[in-house]
């Protein structure tokens, strides 16, 4: 693989997979409001 191709692959991985990691971290490391009671599948 050419250097440019390797760099673009790493860039895509960093942005998309790294971004996903950060998004999951943001969602899970945040105090959430208490959920209301829900009836399921009536």
């Amino acid at each position, binding site marked *: 693989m050419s250097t440019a191709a390797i760099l*673009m692959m790493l860039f895509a991985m960093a942005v998309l997979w790294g971004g996903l990691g950060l998004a999951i971290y943001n969602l899970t490391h945040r105090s959430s409001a208490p959920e209301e009671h*829900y009836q399921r599948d009536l």
Partner: protein
Amino acid sequence: MSSQAENPTDVGAHRGAFSSRRVFILAAIGSAVGLGNVWRFPYVAYENGGGAFILPYIVALITAGLPFLLLDYALGHRNRGSAPLSFARTDRRTEGIGWWQVGICFMIAVYYAAVIAWALRYTVFSVDRSWGSDPETFLFSSFLQAGDPGVTLSVVIGVLVPLALVWIAVLVIMALGVEKGIGATAVVFIPLLILAFGALVIRALFLPGASAGLNALFSPNWSALTQTSVWAAAFGQIFFSLSVGFGIMITYSSYVGRRTDMTGSALVVGLSNSGFELLAGIGVFAALGFMAQASGVAVGEVASEGLGLAFVAFPTMINEAPAGAVIGVLFFGSLVFAGLTSLVSVIEVVISAVRDKFELTRLAATLAVGVPAAVISLVFFSTTSGVYVLDIVDHFINRFGILAAAVVSMIVLAWVARAIPGLARHMNLYGSIPLGRWWIVLVSVITPLLLAYVLVRELIEDARAPYEGYPAWMLTVFGWGSVVAVIVFGLLASRVRWRENTPLVAPDELEPLGAGEESPS
């Protein structure tokens, strides 16, 4: 149902719900990650600048994909209804757009099931490489038994049986309900999809020639960034891949607890979809690199997309690859998993709308929607002409159905109903990422303009030459006919009155969310 009338904020609970945010996110990822992620993205990226394509792709994700996903979430979550009910609760005049989306989903469901049935059959074919040395002839002559383009009622048993099995599975899932059916399917199938496709990618990366395939995919052609067609391709890819604009995300978000962080969830779903596309690109082009090397040709000569990639190029590669049967089972199994979770989401849009409008039980609504859909699907797509009808309906309903409905819905919500600021306020109650003026500008002006541009380009392209050279009557009947049919259906369905005890105001207008509470963030 009288209790609903007494306490409209319980409406969401009576419609069914996901048991947790995790199940909702998995279901939404299951909807977004479909066949297009595997067989469309890699080729679109390769054809439009290779590594350079990632830049317009990210711009499209940020400026169109995520904002539109947030809009769908906001509509469904605030109004706690199916697409038509959510639009009606936003502004009574906009209900027809919701039914337009319902019609589109019905159309998609009837042909999408056929592709899953083919993938199911090919999973079995992979074991002994039943397609032989000429997969293209096998696909069209032996398996689909396709003749010249036209319409026949000559049934292909080899397609009919797996298609019937797909519909039985889908009807069982839908009858089980939101949590036990849709939610459980996502909880099981999404991890399976990631495991199967992850194993496929690892295997493909160790094939000789894989690096040549990756080099072809990621080598940047910077001059492509000056072409508007490349930017249009990026916006089109993001739009078609995220399952936005045709009611799915509206429906799913109506099944989530009212205090859920919807903006944070949208970011996870959007990036999961794009992250999977990148994984698919790596796996597909590593495999194509091997195939090119084995055939002694350049990667560009074996690169393809859609049905050709899945049912011709991959079987050809599997013939040559060590442990090809394993690769085949993993690849076609992944298509089945990805396709089923997407099909379930598409048909749920219709079932949810019918339930809301006519107050049917889940089982009754599943049968009322699923049986006709299955019958139409079996009649049109298990025949020797099924592949042609499928190709035409797919092309037209995606471009001039989904895309047109998306543009119209954004413009109407922003400029007729003027609902965007209220939706932003709702999302900000419990969202971890505040939606400010930037989001309002994006969904009111920039995203609809960009998508309208893509739509006009597609219209011009189809006006210049008949799609794939099909006969004009087929394009008129199945292509434009489908497009017009879903619009007419939307207009007519919106004329049907809601039941008296269905409140047409958003639940949080009756019982404001967040009143007297501290924001968790």
